[in-house]
């Protein structure tokens, strides 16, 4: 028989211990979210040979279509513009996917929550992991577009990886806030998806921030701009600014604190919210 440690379920367990528990679960139970994420991808693209490359293909065709058309409208050079929106779409799909699917992290796993002990953080890590898999597939195709328009990876490219890592941590923290709250208030999913759509147009993804027609405050006070630049700048052979990094790190910290609050607030309630 296994070593018998004493466990006590109290009506008001320690908040700090619970936060530590959620974090260690993410690390110790990585195989659970890893397997669940992999199987999600497998189920979505079962019996198709290209698998997730199907979305990558559709993203690539959108990028090329919009790139060629809008570069005419904006009177920009096709090559650099194509690279710009290619990288932007790629990163936005990751951010938008993480936020929107993060809302469903717990709803999707209702059956699991009803019958086994599974941490909120593990269910959220599964969402972020499966979006990372999709991101990696898209990354391959978008890189081909960048190569095609003549961009060659420079030493800045080494900053892509830490950029994506911070972005993933930000999205993970957001999912831990949105997942439990959406379980209670189902309309949060709709609110988040409309806001995401709205931010897509407000953030320099289709339009370049240096086209001079938009007040710079609009760009600089938009956290999504900094989060995107974290990865987009090194993809396009530029260095992200210190401000990009510090705003992104600050957002991740705030989202992380909110996640801790949500863990503690929701831990005893999740079951009755189902």
């Amino acid at each position: 028989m296994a070593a018998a440690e004493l466990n006590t379920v109290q009506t008001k367990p320690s908040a700090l211990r619970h936060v530590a528990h959620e974090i260690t679960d993410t690390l110790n139970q990585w195989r659970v979210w890893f397997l669940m994420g992999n199987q999600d991808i497998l189920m979505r693209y079962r019996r198709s040979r290209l698998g997730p490359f199907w979305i990558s293909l559709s993203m690539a065709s959108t990028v090329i279509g919009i790139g060629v058309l809008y570069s005419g409208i904006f009177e920009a050079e096709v090559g650099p513009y194509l690279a710009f929106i290619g990288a932007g779409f790629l990163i936005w799909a990751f951010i938008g996917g993480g936020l929107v699917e993060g809302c469903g992290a717990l709803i999707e796993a209702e059956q699991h929550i009803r019958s086994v002990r599974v941490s909120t953080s593990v269910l959220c890590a599964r969402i972020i992991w499966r979006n990372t898999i999709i991101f990696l597939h898209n990354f391959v195709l978008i890189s081909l577009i960048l190569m095609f328009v003549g961009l060659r990876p420079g030493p800045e490219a080494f900053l892509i990886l830490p950029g994506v890592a911070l972005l993933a941590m930000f999205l993970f923290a957001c999912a831990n806030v949105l997942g439990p709250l959406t379980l209670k208030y189902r309309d949060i999913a709709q609110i988040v998806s409309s806001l995401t759509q709205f931010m897509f147009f407000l953030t320099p993804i289709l339009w370049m921030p240096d086209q001079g027609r938009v007040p710079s405050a609009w760009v600089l006070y938009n956290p999504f701009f900094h989060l995107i630049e974290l990865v987009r700048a090194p993809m396009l052979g530029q260095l992200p600014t210190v401000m990009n990094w510090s705003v992104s790190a600050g957002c991740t910290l705030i989202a992380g604190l909110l996640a801790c609050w949500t863990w503690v607030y929701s831990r005893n309630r999740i079951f009755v919210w189902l």
Partner: protein
Amino acid sequence: MVRLELKNVSFEYPLFEVTDRSLKMSIMRRLNGATVPSICAIQNVSFRLLDGDRLGLVGRNGAGKSSLLRVLAGLAHPNQGTYHYHGRVVPLIEKGLGINPELSAADNVELPLRLLGASSNEIDQARDGIREFSELGEFFDLPVRRYSEGMKARLSFALSTSLVSDVLILDEWLSAGDRAFVQKAEKRLVDFLEQIGVVVLASHDLELLRNVCNKVLWLEKGETRMMGDADEVINAYIMSQDRGASSSAEDQAA
């Protein structure tokens, strides 16, 4: 030794209406001072179970059996009282959880067991046992969606009986389904249960409970109506049901 102990445990859950599910609407309702009513699923239940105890839960539908199982499994949190347990609790509430029909049995061993809390070592050990026991032959490496119902039942039984725990929570008795399989399954089940400290089982099958359990808890509207020796409680439960049936028959006659 004492494996688990409940002291005055109550569990109630709020009855949300559709409007409570909307952020906008519930802020409005909250501002108007509306409160969400709640119902008490478990009220003031206390008991302790020692190693070797097999506890059966009886009661009508809605008496709180499922809620109590979920409190014991650590899924639902009691609003009042304390609950202690030693060691590992494995809840087998949803059979076949984590089994992916697109994957083979071989690839379906890991996730279901991980969800129940198995370690890598235990999974490696379980894998051979499951292959051998389930007698799926070459089907073991084919997607589960191609299996017959009997084959699925064998796989799910083999999975359910491969993880040893200190406390086992069952919503339904473990069975292998297949007739030809019963003897082999029976033996595996006996060997498996010998290694389990405490078993808690909810069932409507009173004969099964008589055979399997040494203690029975009779729940009524979330409260303990009676708890004690299996035969004694089951007899009392049957009596009350008969009485209930005859009194309702009298009602109809009158």
